[in-house]
């Protein structure tokens, strides 16, 4: 357990301050200055977020509970503390409210939470596969992997359309030493990159060179396709899962996924799980149904 990629969180909710909110195609990039949190969350970990004021009163008298978000990028803030970037897709009252925040607004957060991605298995390259908003945790993973050893990290991203595919630009920006990743973009409508699903280049890549560790995050159907492709080829894969969450720190037992070892709580045993643990990544009630 000591070895799990997990940075501990302070045991209470704290207030960060929104420092930027940028519209990025179909997404919002929300940047917050976190004074009291740790500087080194691990890629794949997440934070529970809520607007510091007026969380509630949206459609259906919601939101009430905080919402889980992978951090997408982290850096030291020049004035001390940590700057955290989150990539948000507005799908309901919580993400809608967070998308309304402006610089200076308080952001309530708890985190970093959960277990992040583990290093690639010995002798393998990292192959990152992201679908839609699922690219968020892959961005910081990519930052970290590119910072550590530049060679061979490959990124395959799939989006609905060019509007959403703007998130792919984040993988090019802010790279240390201007390194350029091996990046392939797919869109459902072919408006950017190749038309088709991200699993197509994944399949090609695995056929070409199966000595990879796959890191995947995206909608359940994509994750399940990735899981199955990797399982058939005995390729190691780490999947970042989603579930509705009430607490994010193992308190409510609400976020379970069925695994070969029974139900596990995605928030404390995940969100990153070894694909081998799963019979299916098509989880009920997860993702945006």
């Amino acid at each position, binding site marked *: *357990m000591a070895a799990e990629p*997990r940075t*501990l*969180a*302070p*045991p*209470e*909710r704290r207030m960060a301050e929104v420092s930027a909110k940028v519209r990025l195609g179909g997404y919002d990039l929300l940047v917050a200055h976190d004074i009291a949190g740790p500087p080194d969350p691990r890629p794949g970990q997440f934070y529970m977020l*809520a607007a510091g004021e007026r969380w*509630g009163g949206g459609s*259906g*008298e*919601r*939101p*009430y*509970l*905080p919402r889980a978000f992978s951090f997408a990028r982290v850096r030291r803030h020049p004035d001390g503390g940590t700057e955290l970037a989150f990539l948000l897709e507005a799908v309901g009252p919580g993400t809608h409210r967070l998308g309304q925040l402006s610089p200076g607004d308080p952001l*309530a957060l*708890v985190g970093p*939470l*959960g277990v992040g991605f583990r290093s690639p298995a010995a002798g393998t390259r990292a192959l990152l596969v992201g679908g839609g908003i699922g690219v968020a945790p892959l961005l910081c993973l990519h930052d970290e992997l590119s910072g550590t050893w530049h060679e061979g990290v490959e990124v395959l991203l799939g989006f609905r359309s060019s509007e959403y595919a703007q998130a792919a630009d984040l993988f090019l920006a802010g790279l240390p030493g201007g390194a350029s990743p091996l990046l392939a973009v797919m869109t459902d409508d072919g408006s950017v990159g190749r038309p088709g699903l991200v699993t197509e280049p994944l399949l090609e890549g695995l056929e070409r060179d199966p000595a990879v560790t796959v890191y995947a995050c995206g909608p359940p159907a994509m994750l399940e396709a990735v899981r199955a492709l990797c399982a058939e080829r005995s390729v190691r894969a780490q999947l970042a899962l989603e*579930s*509705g*969450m*009430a*607490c994010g*720190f*193992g*308190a*409510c*037992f*609400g*976020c*379970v*996924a*069925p695994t070969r070892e*029974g*139900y596990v*709580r995605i928030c*404390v045993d995940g969100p990153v799980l070894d694909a081998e643990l799963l019979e299916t990544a098509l*989880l*009920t*009630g997860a993702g945006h*149904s």
Partner: protein
Amino acid sequence: MTAQPAGPAEPPAAGAAPPVVLCGVQLSGPVLNGSGTFDAIAAHRAFGDELLERFPFAAFVSKTVTVEPRQGNPPPRLWEAPAGLINSIGLPNRGITGFLSHDLPRLAELPVPLVVSVMGFAREELALLVERVGEREEVALLELNVSCPNVETGLIMGADPAETAAAVERVRPLTEKPLIVKLTPNAVDPPAVAAAAEAAGADAIALINTLKGMALHPHTRDPWLGGVTGGVSGPAVRAVALQQVAAVAARTKVPLIGMGGIASGGDAVDFLAAGATCVAVGTESFRDPGAGRRIAAEMEVILGPQGANRAYRSGKGRPRSPAGL
């Protein structure tokens, strides 16, 4: 940590709220957790030792333990309701043997007294649980969760005064530790159930558990929850909880642990005013893992240095007109 009064070496756990005595057990403040709403072992993984240094509660109540291990209900298990939560968790736990060997030693390391919650689907199950938990010195108090059907009679134990009395009578002789009976709010007359539990030997009453509720999938309109129905908690149930606490306080003398939607010190003081000795925080901990500490601190501001146990144990806020209940 055992049932003994907290020694001087103990770090103050829940803010600096004045000490409270619950069934002879001295607590550093009036705020507990609701059973099943805080997993101290998982929280320790997430928060590390800072959790123990700033432990949110003055006593820790375990998740409900059953005789057999349970996986719990299929997902989805959660639905967000207006100012509340519906859960259908289904009491996952390792079963009594797993709990005693795996969980209890870890929980004993917490800096506060321990309450173990148990549920039996028959009186003999409850007896077995009370015996096995009661003999462990790490445990300060036992809580009987009676919100389940008795498979022998088909009645929900905690909804029926006679069922509840029979259950408490059966287990009362089996331990000398204080017994808390946790009521279900889904009853016609919770005060009658509380009075029956008290007469049968309960040392304290905890209430409320969740209200029965349901949600449908917004597109298919099938039941959303894997367990079909669930339990409602959070601010949405607070008014119901406060009324039940006041009504039970009017009919019983044993200390009460009031809960249901408490999210602030002001809410908690309402429960003391209604007649509770302690309060418990459940769903609010999901929003803020440090809620217990924050609420204890807010209570202290409202109550002043004289503290919780004095001003309000008089039952100041108890309804003036019992007829209104």
